[in-house]
């Protein structure tokens, strides 16, 4: 089944207990780092690994860490983004529920590399039951001397706090998250300044996704070079994919980067093929924000190359014929899916989750939702289709945070690849799918 970095022991229901995690080799990376490596040494391994952020943007983690303003005399903070709220994405939840100590270990190592004494986990509000799991695991780590003062006698101290959100997708955007963590309304901040210079309480801050941080222990144990051997090209290592939709085996899968998309969908070891035997119609490959692709373009690029799960392969062809790896939320749709209804559903989500600060996103998302509702429900007009494209263009790239883009891309791509279906909805005065 390929190499497992994050999920090797995940089927053991006891893994969330400290002793069980420890028996599988847990916390040896902390011992190794604190006893034999300098903070810069840890940073160096992460850089060599080529690890890229798993929260959606795919920014190289080592490079992000190197931007931290280390000269600043203010405290430095590390924040773990566990707000996972992107429709179709449920891989962080999987790790948090089953393997919380891997995240805690990753936070200790990252905190050590970054010279951080206080770290936070910002947890999606709806994951309240995970708060209990995490708090228990954090308490165990304190008790065993892996958190708190003078960890393992190394002189390095780290406090870790878990902070639940209150149910807003926008608080997953890193600067909205910081506002919320400071106790304010979760509005994204203007950048610059970037969090690496002025983040939490105006102090230098690194924000990383759960999956990103949970990968660090493996990198410290095995070395960055060995991690970079896994995967393909600039997409190193493995990626958790949350697969959902019309497939036989929905769930979370750990894949080596470069794994063929076709095999992923049809192999019994993974998605197991289409659920009701109906043909594949479309896939949203990286969470609801990324462009949707029709069956032909998700299996093969426009040049006929088989697509694989990696940043580069999924992006091949740009937005004309490609998409993005995003957060790895792989939503599979068969022929029975109405693209208009699906798009309406996504757009309704973005309208509901827009913070409302900037005019293109606030007004544009609600306008698009209203038009899509009309088209789906028989009140569509032919000019609505181009109007939707125009509105999405007027939002894209013109907002404070990427939620605007995330709302615009699904609209533009659905019309790009499935325009006929929109036209038919107008002609037939509504939807003909069940």
């Amino acid at each position, binding site marked *: 089944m390929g190499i497992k970095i994050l999920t090797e022991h995940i089927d053991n229901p006891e893994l969330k207990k400290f002793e069980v995690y420890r028996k599988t080799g847990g916390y040896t990376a902390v011992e190794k780092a604190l006893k034999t490596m300098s903070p810069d040494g840890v940073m160096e391994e992460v850089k060599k690994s080529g690890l890229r952020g798993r929260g959606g943007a795919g920014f190289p983690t080592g490079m992000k860490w190197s931007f931290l303003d280390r000269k600043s005399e203010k405290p430095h903070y590390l924040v773990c983004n566990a707000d996972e709220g992107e429709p179709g994405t449920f891989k962080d939840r999987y790790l948090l529920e089953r393997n919380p100590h891997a995240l805690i270990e990753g936070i200790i190592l990252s905190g050590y590399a970054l010279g951080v004494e206080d770290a936070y986990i910002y947890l999606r509000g709806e994951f309240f039951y995970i708060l209990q799991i995490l708090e228990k695991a954090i308490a165990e780590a304190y008790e065993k001397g892996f958190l708190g003062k003078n960890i393992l006698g190394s002189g390095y101290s780290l406090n870790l706090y878990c902070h639940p959100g209150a149910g807003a997708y926008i608080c997953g955007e890193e600067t909205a998250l910081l506002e919320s963590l400071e106790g304010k309304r979760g509005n994204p901040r203007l950048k610059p300044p970037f969090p690496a210079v002025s983040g939490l309480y105006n102090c230098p801050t690194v924000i990383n996704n759960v999956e990103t941080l949970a990968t660090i222990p493996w990198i410290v144990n095995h070395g960055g070079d060995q991690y970079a051997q896994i995967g393909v090209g600039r997409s190193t290592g493995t990626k958790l994919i949350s697969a959902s939709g019309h497939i036989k085996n929905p769930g979370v899968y750990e894949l080596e980067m470069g794994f063929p998309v076709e095999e992923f969908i049809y192999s019994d070891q993974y998605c197991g093929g289409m659920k009701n035997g109906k043909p594949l119609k479309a896939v949203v490959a990286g969470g609801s924000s990324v462009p949707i692709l029709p069956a032909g373009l998700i299996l093969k690029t426009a040049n006929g190359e088989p697509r694989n799960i990696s940043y580069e392969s999924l992006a091949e062809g740009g937005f004309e014929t490609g998409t993005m790896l995003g957060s790895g939320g792989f939503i599979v749709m068969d022929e029975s899916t109405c693209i208009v209804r699906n798009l309406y559903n996504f757009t309704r989500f973005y309208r509901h989750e827009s913070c409302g600060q900037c*005019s293109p996103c606030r007004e544009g998302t609600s306008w698009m939702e209203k038009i899509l509702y009309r088209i789906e429900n028989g009140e569509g007009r032919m000019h609505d289709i181009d109007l939707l494209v125009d509105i999405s263009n007027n939002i894209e790239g013109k907002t404070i945070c990427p939620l605007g883009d995330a709302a615009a891309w699904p609209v533009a791509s659905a019309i790009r690849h499935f325009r006929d279906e929109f036209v038919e909805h107008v002609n037939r005065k509504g939807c003909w799918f069940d």
Partner: protein
Amino acid sequence: MIKVTIDNIEVEVEEGSTILEAARKIGGKVVPPTMCYYSKLRDTGGKCRTCLVKVAKGSAKDPRPMPKLVVACSTPAQDGMVVENTLSQEVIEARKGVVEFLLTNHPLECPICDQAGECDLQDLSYGFGEGESRYEEERRRFGYNDIGPYIKINNERCILCYRCVYLSAQLTDKRLLGVLFRGDYAEISTYINAAVENDFSGNVIDVCPVGALTDRSSRFKSRVWFTKPYDAHRDCPKCAGKVVLWAKGDEVIRITARKDEFGEVEDFICNECRFEKKQVSDWVIDGPRHIKRQSVISLNHYETINKLKETPPKD
């Protein structure tokens, strides 16, 4: 000092200045419109997106253009930067889009809105709006909201610039106004509708770019262009006491702070000066005030009011 070029005009500004500050130093047409930024209030800007401009050259050191349009109000200028505002088709298109968005839910009630004639959104629509709206959906409605005896709030007209929120946090001794809810449901409110009681709360009226916050003491009394503005001052223990009186005949209809050429208040004034001193005898009159703006006010400037009477509008 650093050198910045905007629409082919070069200007020197201090390091750390924004693109907007550089543009304002040049003045005139190169200044991008601003609906949310307010130089006198910290943290404002970045929200309305009307000031988007194109950076054709990042700096002398790094001449690459910036991939996306940037907000002039909050983007630091760099030495050797080349910016396009009115010269860039991309900027003009983007600004048209933003104006369209700002108007989608804006009620078409200028005929009964006290702000008409000195409304930044009206000016902006003149400049960049289309004759016809492509918005065919229902407009947003909010519940009735009473924020006390001095100030009328009308959330339907609000463009969520957040100026009043920052003003309340920075100028008054309590945080009076805040934003409830998200997205297009977001609305300005005093926290749980507490009346805005503070000596300086009335300034929210002057910083509001539209008619979402208006003066209850002069509500519906006159169209702006039928009143004559006079600079006046008094010895006020609370504020600088420098105001503009808007008078109809000998009656003082309304009192506001004085605004500069960018529509920003020069000195914030207290509520007593604004709401309680409506007698001419309360003031020392300095003389007529010349209003520099594009909207109806200057077009129908009081200095030409007689002439307008002679040529009634065509029906």
